[in-house]
């Protein structure tokens, strides 16, 4: 180490520095991948952005399936939403639960301006510009009464706003206007608005899903660049300062109220812009597109990826949306399920001998349980395992009764009890209980969860969130934040 600086009689900062860098030292990754990690960390942000956009743009050439491309488009839209929410929640620290209303507002406004609903058919660029400006203004309007609210209070008020939006969209199909006889249909009610014009720019009409992928990727790149620049400007610093301590920010010459409104407007404008693409790619908008489940999903993306980090929330959006799609198909879901359990075991159970013992124990436990069940009551093992890959491997190991519902439900409850017990136990008992718990998980999975994918998706997403959040509370790429020191 080089000579430490400091006055001869003053304190040496060498020790200080060494302590302060402990995190850096312990963060050094070893192994064969170390140079790769180091290189990835040195990459500038624009290179990462270019790589991400470039690879995503190639999706239509890798798979010609319209479904895959549509999932890609949705993922980009989710990433855009997560980026918008990140401005409000991640940077300015405002718990805005009304965020999806701006998304819905953007989509509906675009639908009204560019469809046969009122026969307006504005050019796409004009509609999109109107939507962005109006969404920002709506954000301002929502922000005005709530700018003095913080935390829970702000959350309640904005949640109320989100609910009002859904109610309005569902019921604005019979509005009585003073200059019109009879009720006017504005939003199309529960049936929404359909036959929305596709976006066309300078004569090029975005007709196919793949063209929408490229369009949304283009918008995504522009939004990321804008946000990156904002983040490293006085406005971005001021947002983060008010998130940390709004009183101190105010006293350090930052106009906190105006900055809060600005964050609301930014989030709202991003959401509105995303809404226009959503409306045009789906060719229709419906009230239930913008309800609470969407809000929860976007929040999960931001929190999972790491609130405050641009690459973080994008990775959060990709992880959650792609997992949700993969879980639609039972065969994929099964693969994902066992791979996740396997990965969890490999990363969490040390040393290797213990891991091997658990694996051997698990296989043995299954075979014994299967034989026992067959001997006790043959009906317990004569049901069918839902088809797909790897189903054959499980025959002879996992119990699959003819009538799986009741036993499966019982197993489910038993599984919850076992998992709870697992968190309370320590040492050898934990390892021993782990074996039947894992078997039980496989049993419940094969008999109950695989047959009901819609419930399973949400359940697994919840489990994923719980596990990830306890493993990395700051999110995948977020930096751990300190509240009180």
């Amino acid at each position: 180490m080089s000579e430490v600086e400091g006055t001869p009689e003053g304190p040496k900062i060498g020790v200080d520095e060494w302590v302060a860098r402990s995190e850096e030292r312990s963060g050094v990754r070893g192994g064969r991948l170390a140079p790769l990690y180091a290189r990835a960390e040195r990459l500038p942000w624009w290179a990462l952005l270019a790589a991400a956009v470039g690879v995503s743009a190639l999706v239509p050439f890798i798979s010609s399936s319209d479904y895959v491309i549509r999932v890609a488009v949705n993922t980009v839209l989710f990433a855009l939403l997560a980026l918008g929410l990140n401005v409000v929640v991640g940077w300015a620290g405002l718990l805005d639960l009304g965020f999806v209303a701006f998304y819905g507002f953007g989509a509906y406004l675009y639908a009204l301006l560019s469809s046969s609903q009122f026969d307006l058919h504005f050019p796409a660029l004009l509609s999109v510009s109107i939507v962005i400006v109006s969404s920002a203004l709506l954000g301002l309007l929502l922000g005005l009464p709530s700018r003095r609210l913080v935390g829970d209070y702000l959350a309640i008020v904005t949640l109320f706003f989100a609910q009002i939006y859904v109610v309005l969209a569902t019921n604005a199909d019979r509005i009585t206007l003073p200059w019109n006889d009879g009720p006017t249909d504005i939003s199309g009610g529960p049936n929404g608005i359909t036959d929305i014009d596709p976006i066309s720019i300078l004569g090029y009409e975005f007709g196919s899903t793949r063209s929408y992928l490229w369009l949304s990727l283009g918008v995504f790149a522009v939004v990321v660049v804008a946000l990156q620049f904002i983040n490293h400007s006085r406005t971005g610093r001021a947002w983060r300062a008010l998130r940390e301590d709004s009183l101190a920010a105010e006293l350090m010459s930052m106009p906190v109220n105006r900055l809060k409104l600005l964050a609301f407007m930014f989030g709202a404008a991003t959401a509105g812009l995303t809404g226009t693409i959503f409306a045009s790619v789906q060719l229709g908008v419906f009230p239930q597109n913008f309800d609470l489940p969407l809000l929860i999903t976007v929040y999960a993306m931001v929190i999972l990826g790491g609130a405050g980090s641009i690459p973080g929330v994008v990775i959060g959006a990709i992880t959650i949306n792609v997992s949700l799609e993969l879980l639609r198909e039972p065969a994929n879901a099964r693969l994902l399920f066992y791979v996740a359990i396997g990965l969890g075991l490999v990363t969490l159970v040390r040393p290797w001998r213990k891991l091997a013992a658990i694996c051997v124990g698990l296989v043995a436990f299954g075979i014994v349980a299967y034989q026992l069940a067959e001997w006790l009551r043959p009906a317990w093992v004569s049901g069918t395992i839902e088809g797909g890959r790897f189903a054959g491997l499980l025959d002879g190991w996992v119990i699959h009764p003819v009538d799986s519902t009741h036993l499966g439900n019982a197993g489910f409850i038993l599984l919850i009890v076992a998992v709870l017990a697992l968190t309370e136990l320590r040492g050898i008992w934990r390892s021993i209980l782990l074996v039947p718990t894992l078997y039980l998980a496989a049993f419940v999975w094969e008999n109950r969860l695989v047959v009901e994918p819609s419930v399973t998706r949400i359940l697994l997403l919840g489990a994923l969130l719980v596990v990830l959040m306890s493993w990395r509370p700051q999110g995948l790429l977020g930096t751990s934040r300190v509240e009180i020191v």
Partner: protein
Amino acid sequence: MSRILELKGISKAFGGLQVIDGLDLHVDEGEIVSVIGPNGAGKTTLFNLITGVYQPDRGDILLEGESLLGLLPHKITQRGVARTFQTLRLFLNMTVKENVMAAAYGRTRAGVVRSILRTPGMRREEREISALAEEKLAFFGQRLMGYRWNQPAYSLSYANRRRLEIARATATGPRVLLLDEPAAGMNPKETYEITELIAQLRTEGGYTILVIEHDMHVVEGISDRVVALDHGIKIAEGTFEAVATDPRVVEAYLGTKAAATK
């Protein structure tokens, strides 16, 4: 010397509790004035009134002859009054340098659009406040320099956090600096340093300083004038020797003989 900050008969009550009662106080340009008093005397409330966190019930606060009443805190800071906090209020999860750069908000102009477009003017401004932050941090010697710039503020020691608060306050470009217990929680050596530093802030930075302090050695070392408060009333004012020996000040800190023998 001209009056830079003047408080005329200000009062503030929280419910039935009169925290500041008809207080007159003035600070002249280039002066270092200390405010002392027992806990609950209203010292921090005084700072909160000057910086606009609270509005006084009565009275007026003048900065260079202009009233500060009714202005939002960030406007008051932009006019040239900056403060530190007794209970440190740094932006803990931002880096050391960002803490200081954020405080330069009031002296920069680049708006959102210019930031997104990264206009030459905006980039010049960024370079300027980056240099400004480095200059303000350099005031504390090597303590907040180099590798520290990119570390989060929460990684700093307590004494360094106090220093960073001072650096952050000076980055707003103040004329009057309000320091709320700058030596609290520091060891004797650091306390000695901070005494030197406050003197330096005046000579090198040209700031007029109003300081709340409990450590009498610091008060003695820095003050041109000392003001003693008790229950929101000014009980003594003058040189350190005069105030420290004033019977009412002694009584406020230690109680009366009669009370002690009761």
